[in-house]
């Protein structure tokens, strides 16, 4: 196995990978920022004692957590145009699928975070006449947020890895460009090695941040 690596040709096509990388980052930012916000409401519904919101939120969360992302993305790509008559681009379908998937996981983080607060906090807020929304914004979320940040960071890492699956529905992000490049250059070994390293450099800081945040939280709690 005297194989001589030819990384030069891959690096010469760096602009192609860079273009894919931009779309990967865009997918991540759209899906993650959307999911962080919307999942609060799903998490509230999931923790609610009222029957109907609880049922809908539970069904939504379980459905998305118990099916593969690949199936979800393909489903949105084909199902949306058939059901609504609106033909989304591959990018829109992928962003929507990743957003809904991440929302389901983040909703569980919100629920656990909100439930971790002592009931006295809720009661005290209500006692001084705060509305539910005021209570959430001023009392509950600021306190719960710190405990949830490591979990959200881990979710962000998972999402960043998931964006690569968008390539299967022809979104021209990093993984898609890598496949193109590997068939053009006949250098799959070098291409996928370089792309794996790019993903690692992109994602590892997130994991390190999650470690650090967890450690800080544990030392503060002790």
């Amino acid at each position: 196995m005297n194989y001589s690596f030819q990384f030069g040709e891959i690096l010469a096509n760096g602009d192609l990978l860079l273009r894919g990388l931009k779309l990967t980052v865009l997918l991540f930012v759209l899906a993650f920022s959307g999911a962080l916000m919307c999942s609060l409401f799903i998490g509230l519904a999931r923790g609610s004692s009222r029957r109907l919101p609880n049922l809908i939120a539970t069904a939504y969360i379980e459905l998305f957590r118990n099916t593969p992302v690949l199936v979800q993305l393909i489903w949105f790509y084909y199902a949306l145009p058939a059901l609504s008559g609106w033909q989304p681009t591959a990018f829109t379908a992928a962003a929507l699928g990743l957003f809904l998937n991440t929302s389901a996981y983040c909703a569980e983080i919100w629920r656990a975070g909100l439930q971790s607060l002592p009931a006295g906090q809720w009661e005290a807020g209500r006692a001084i006449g705060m509305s539910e929304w005021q209570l959430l914004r001023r009392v509950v979320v600021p306190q719960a947020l710190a405990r949830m940040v490591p979990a959200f960071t881990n979710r962000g890492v998972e999402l960043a890895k998931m964006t690569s699956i968008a390539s299967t529905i022809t979104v021209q992000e990093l993984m898609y460009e890598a496949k193109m490049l590997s068939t053009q250059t006949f250098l799959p070994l070098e291409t996928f090695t370089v792309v794996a390293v790019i993903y690692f450099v992109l994602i590892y800081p997130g994991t390190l941040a999650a470690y650090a945040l967890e450690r800080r939280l544990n030392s503060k709690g002790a």
Partner: protein
Amino acid sequence: MQYVWDFRPVWLNFGVLLEGLVNTLKLSGFSIGLGLVIGLVLALGRLAPTRFLSLPATVIIEFYRNTPPLVHFFWYFYGLPILTGISLSPFAAAAAALSVQSGAFFAEVFRGGIISVERGQWEAGRAIGMGHAQLMRRVILPQAFRRMIPPLMERSFELVKTTSLAATLTYGELVYKAMVLATQTYRPMEIYSTVAVMFFTVLFLASLGMRAVEHRLARRTAR
């Protein structure tokens, strides 16, 4: 716009989907088994007292945990043969990628379980003259194993979902069979919906089973 659902193509070809599901479970079972072995080796390596072992194990674990599985699928299928001269079948490439990738996650579960064993246990073992390997085998692992069961099962469910990526290597698991059927019957909606329901049923039942196991474990430790 009214979409007219027609599930007939699904029922007529349900045997094909079932065959895909069997292949999904085959790939999952094989990769979980091999992944657990790789995971244990990596965890013991990371915890080994010498840097000679702990550094490479740490690098492998962190690398595989922080890169998308899809890249590894392609690397093992298209890249590895160039390096080794042996070309892998789609099943072998998918199983190898999944086993190593999940092994990295399993390793962290093993490591977490091992370091959660109280320090007194380690000290007691050393005090009666046990070596590192003996201590691990006779004292630490048997105690740590019970705590690892729930996270190991959760990780295995993740693996089952990840097997769907083997469709991109044309391995005939459930999603690949669905892709073929969808182009043959022009009924992607019905077919992919059915596939989603099939995955959901398997994974939801499995997670209910996991909750039952967790419950029993919790009761036993409480006693």
